[in-house]
């Protein structure tokens, strides 16, 4: 008798387990809320007094003022460069129904620059408001780093904004040319991978800063490479993953960058769509862009998965490559061929092979002559 297969009842309970997890999460939220209430009620005197001090300080130094929107400038160092319409819309609704709940925070420079509250500022402009409640503070040190650290580890920062923010931070801190940073990183990652030493770097992520410095110095890297790796590790970022997943965003076509910022296109999808380049399609830049934009729209509208996007991209590619013949060989390439033929040193070749070469060239010559006659 063959052994009978037991029914697998594991799958049956997966949804129920998800519901349970939801319930547990909710209970936890309730408990935390209760704890917060309790702490507040206790009046935990220490916190209360420091809050009062802070409030007093703010009152005296920079009380809440009404600032005309026209005087407010967005922060060019804001790591979040993406503000989706939906998120502005929802803020608009909130401002409209509840008014402005918290003052925005501005930094006193030549203009008043937003430190916190860009979404509210954009929404207020959209609503046609004249001014916003704001607190003005003096310039904090290393503003970008603070803003970066607060948003870098948040999931909602898209990889493109993340890439730009990291490059800006690295170039500020190490005094490197922003454009060269991705290249420096990719060179050192490739080399360390080849040497099998990349793991040592990744392991350093959890080490202390002095340990990181010591290990990096011991690896005898180029000065710039060491600086880039040290700063990434200091930001608790995995250099290998930044090189593979984040920095490639910087070389995306402009239309794809726009799609990430305005339509919520995901980084991985953008990388797939990037394959639809003028070179791969054998089209002009302009034509390739229009193909890409159309395909991108489809990906976003139909919410395609990465796998589906890859499939679509290869379908689009084969449809265009099939209709257009192979791209014509450029003049430069022909020059190269001529140069190579002319520079063959005959004295280094065995007689037998010389005969073969002669036959091949004669054959080609006949083809050229008949091509010229046409």
């Amino acid at each position, binding site marked *: 008798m063959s052994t*009978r297969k*037991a*029914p697998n*009842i*594991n799958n*049956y*309970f997966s*949804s*129920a*387990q998800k*519901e*349970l997890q*939801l*319930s547990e999460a*909710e209970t936890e939220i309730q408990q935390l809320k209760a704890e917060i209430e309790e702490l507040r009620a206790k009046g935990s005197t220490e916190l209360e007094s420091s809050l009062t001090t802070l409030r007093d300080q703010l009152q005296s130094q920079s009380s809440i003022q009404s600032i005309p929107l026209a005087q407010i400038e967005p922060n060019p160092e804001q790591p979040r460069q993406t503000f989706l319409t939906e998120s502005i819309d929802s803020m608009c609704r909130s401002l409209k129904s509840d008014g402005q709940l918290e003052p925005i925070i501005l930094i006193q420079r030549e203009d008043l620059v937003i430190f916190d509250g860009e979404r509210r500022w954009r929404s207020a402009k959209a609503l046609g408001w004249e001014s916003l409640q704001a607190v003005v503070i003096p310039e904090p040190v290393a503003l970008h780093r603070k803003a970066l650290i607060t948003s870098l580890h948040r999931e909602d920062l898209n990889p493109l904004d993340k890439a730009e923010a990291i490059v800006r931070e690295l170039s500020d801190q190490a005094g490197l040319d922003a454009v060269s940073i991705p290249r420096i990183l990719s060179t050192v990652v490739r080399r360390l991978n080849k040497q099998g030493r990349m793991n040592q770097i990744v392991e350093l992520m959890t080490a202390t800063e002095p340990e990181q410095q010591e290990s990096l110095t011991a690896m005898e890297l180029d000065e710039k490479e060491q600086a880039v790796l040290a700063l990434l590790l200091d930001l608790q970022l995995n250099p290998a993953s930044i090189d593979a997943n984040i920095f490639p965003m910087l070389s995306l076509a402009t239309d794809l960058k726009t799609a990430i910022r305005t339509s919520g296109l995901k980084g991985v999808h953008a990388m797939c769509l990037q394959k639809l380049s003028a070179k791969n399609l054998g089209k002009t830049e302009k034509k390739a862009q229009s193909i890409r934009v159309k395909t991108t729209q489809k990906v976003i509208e139909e919410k395609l998965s990465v796998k589906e996007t890859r499939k679509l991209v290869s379908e689009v590619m084969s449809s265009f490559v099939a209709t257009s013949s192979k791209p014509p060989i450029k003049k430069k390439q022909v020059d190269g061929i001529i140069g190579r033929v002319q520079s063959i040193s005959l004295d280094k070749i065995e007689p037998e092979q010389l005969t073969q070469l002669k036959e091949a060239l004669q054959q080609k010559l006949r083809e050229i002559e008949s091509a010229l006659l046409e």
Partner: protein
Amino acid sequence: MQIRLAVISNAGGSGKTTLSVHLAYELGKRGYNVALMDLDPQGSLTLFCGLNPPEPEQTLAAVLTDKFDGNWPLTPCWDEDTKQVVVCQGGMILTQTADELVLHKRGVYLLGDCLTDYPLEHDLIIFDCPATLGPLPLMALAACTHLVVPVQLEPKSIQGAAHLLEWYYYHCRHLRLKPNPEILGFVPSQYDSRKAVHRQIKESLPTQLEQMNIRVFPAIRNSAEFVNASGQGLPIHLYRKTHPALGDFKEIASHLANLIGKPFKKAKKSL
């Protein structure tokens, strides 16, 4: 402490009424006062307890109206053997109640409200629910302190029970029950050790449920005598006094007895 136990399963024939009746009898024999409530329009409890079909005014449907004055229609059963068990019967009229519940302002909370406004002094109240996840079991969920899920050891029944758990977690959140009723556990029923599928599922079910902190009680065996006893309106204890299946209820009955604590002695006061 009074325990209000909802016996819920969305699969038919999973042994809800059998479990309700036998738990009532076991706890009654241990000296606890037990009220059985039939939320099932089929009125299976009437059959299993050997009672006469009730008039509509003598059913749970009469309780679940705004006119209810606290006079619970409770009928004693097996009273030659025990004075401890009473039944609030169900019947077809409950289908109408189910429809009306949907529109009632306190709909799902109605049974709980009745028990708050006109409390019963029984140590254990058992809600025998119909085989759906409709408004009547939902009302039992909102009124109970614990629930128990009888389940056949067959894929369809297990899958149904998994959906029941989803239903339970979802509604506990949405009805904002405070505290949430507790799942006492699963009770495998009609276990036939000769069937491979029964043995296999009996083996693997506890592992699955353990992850969700749900206990599995010992299985109730399959026996034709359960069917025969129900036909006579008796628990198997009274029908075949030495049947081995009697022992299958011991663990869950003891568990309930522990939860309740000492029997609540009814104060003998004249009404």
